[in-house]
């Protein structure tokens, strides 16, 4: 089962990972990822970010995440996928995103989990604005994210 949530609320990582294999005996591998708000900025420097606000495009967000997960399902043998992405105001240390993938074998689980994160970073309509001592600042898209996503082109 694939489930996608776009929500303001935090989530329970342990429960989400547990749910991916609960009650079944064919799952041998669950790969997962948690993304968190960092206080340091990409530009470098010390702890500058006091908070971050995530904006998204309701409707398109869910649609794009569903398409990404469907593409992962077509590429690897998966037994379940869970994606949670938060929006709203978050402070450093808070969770932003969770991706969990269940499979029989670890290779498929790892690849699909990383693929979903890479595509999410370049295709899901989220935007981050950081609060810094100098005021609000929109985060620029990273070239590293584009090249990470481009790796998966076939």
């Amino acid at each position, binding site marked *: 089962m694939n489930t996608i949530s776009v929500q303001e609320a935090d989530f329970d990582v342990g429960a989400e990972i547990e749910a991916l294999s609960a009650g079944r005996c064919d799952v041998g591998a669950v790969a997962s990822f948690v*993304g968190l708000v960092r206080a340091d900025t990409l530009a470098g420097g010390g702890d500058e970010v006091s908070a971050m606000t*995530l*904006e*998204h*495009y309701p*409707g*398109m967000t869910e*649609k*794009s995440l569903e398409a990404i997960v469907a593409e992962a399902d077509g590429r690897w043998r998966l037994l379940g996928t869970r994606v949670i*992405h938060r929006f709203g105001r978050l402070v450093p240390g808070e969770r*932003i*995103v969770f991706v969990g993938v269940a499979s029989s074998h670890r290779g498929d689980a790892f690849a699909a989990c990383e693929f979903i*994160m890479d595509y*999410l*970073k*370049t*295709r*899901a*309509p*989220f*935007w*981050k*604005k950081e609060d810094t001592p100098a005021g609000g600042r*929109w*985060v*620029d*898209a*990273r070239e590293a*994210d584009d090249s990470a996503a481009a790796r998966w082109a076939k």
Partner: protein
Amino acid sequence: MSIKVLYFASLRETLGYSHETLTLPANIATLGDLRDHLARRGGVWEALEEGRNVRAAINQNMAGPEVAVADRDEVAFFPPVTGG
């Protein structure tokens, strides 16, 4: 034709609009035409000029400038995404 246009993130702040409903002149066929049309409003709208790093979606699917715009479409303009 009549379409809904949405703006997000830094573009929304720059333009001062989150959305608008537009009745388009007949010579506008594609997303690229629409973007030029909006940029010609001048001032802050020049943020939509060709060459600016703006992405777009039609009916919640990423779309390039060549894609046709149809009556009642939901069009969105926004900067490159930065989620995750």
